């Protein structure tokens, strides 16, 4: 409510004709640190990246793009996943935020496994839209999961935003047992 009072006053003065609305001042409170991390699109479920490999292509070394991403992202192109990391700190206390991925638990189908080192991604910066990566975000580089607990994807200073649409690929370098393999990658945004 305290925050709204100056705005209401300015707006009331503007409405009465006392001040021409030719300029605006935005005051950002010097609050505590804040991290925002979004991976995926709208909806109540974690995004799922699906790969379907033709029988004639299993293990032939030709990377296969994901066949779909569910649910679809309203911000990113079809078949891609929005990864949006934002970090904020006090003005007098600039800090560094790091986005990491934990891909240490392989995909499994019963007792069979595929390591996440067989999954890579290609990054592109999404356009606008209500949740788009506006204001020239930092691009999270393309890469391949390394199967570790804390693979650093990008480090950036506070008051910045790292954001991409990621298109995932299955590298398909090995003949593996038939089955439906599932697994989960956890992204962590941290600011010490």
């Amino acid at each position, binding site marked *: 409510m305290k925050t*709204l009072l100056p705005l*209401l006053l300015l*707006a*009331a003065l503007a*409405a*009465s004709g006392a001040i021409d609305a030719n300029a605006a001042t935005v005051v950002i409170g010097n609050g*505590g*640190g*804040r*991290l*925002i*991390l*979004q*991976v*995926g*699109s*709208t*909806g*109540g*479920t*974690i*995004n*799922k*990246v*699906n*790969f379907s*490999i*033709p*029988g*004639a292509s*299993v293990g032939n070394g030709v990377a296969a793009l994901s066949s779909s991403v569910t649910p679809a992202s309203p911000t990113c192109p079809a078949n891609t*996943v929005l990864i*949006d990391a934002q970090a904020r700190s*006090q003005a007098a206390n600039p800090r560094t935020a790091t986005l990491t991925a934990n891909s240490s638990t392989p*995909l499994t*189908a019963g*007792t*069979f496994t*595929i390591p996440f080192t067989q999954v890579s991604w290609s990054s592109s910066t999404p356009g606008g839209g*209500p*949740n788009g990566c506006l204001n020239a975000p930092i691009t999270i580089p393309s890469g391949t999961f390394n199967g570790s607990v804390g693979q650093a994807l990008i480090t950036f200073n506070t008051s910045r935003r790292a954001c991409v649409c990621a298109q995932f690929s*299955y590298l398909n370098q090995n*003949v*593996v*047992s*038939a*089955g*439906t*393999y*599932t*697994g*989960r*990658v*956890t*992204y*962590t*945004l*941290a*600011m*010490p």
Partner: protein
Amino acid sequence: MNTKTKILKTALALSLGTALAGAIPAHAERTTTTGGGALSTTAHVDFSIVIPRFLTFRVGTASGTIDLITFTVPAANVGDSTPIAGTGGDAGAGTAENVSVLGNGGQVTITESNNSAGAGLAHATLAENIPYTEITTTSSDTANLQRPVLSNAGGNTSLPVLNSGNVTNRSATWTYAYANTAVHSAGTYGTSAKGGRVTYTASMP
């Protein structure tokens, strides 16, 4: 003034509402954390990879041509048990066939059969046959990709050793020889028209 105030409040409410709706949408995997000390927040992505069952099997030339292995016995050696190497294969200077089996659905079984109706390789004109037991097969990888022993009746099997899980990925050469243990009438025996075609079938459960 009251009207202006109401309009102003309404406009501000709409404006703030729109701004908030844009800034904080209802994302399940959008996490926010605040505070003065160290901060950390997580979000997830699930992956699914569907690998279908498949089985690839090769014996001899890969292009689809059926190889013809020919054994030519010198007259001086007919029936003297001197093994006669074949020609016409795609490996071992013609004496052998390249064999490979690649599958991912479990234990593969290779079964031999032939088109002689149990009689063996027939003479071109005479009612005389050479049994398939006279044709020997030797694998270059007896440990992992053994050959099935040829027989008139067919049905002998071999089991390639699984590499890992349900995956079989084995290759070898199978070398053929005519055992030459009996004296037979002169002539040509076999070819595909006279019971001389062997069919190998790889199967996976």
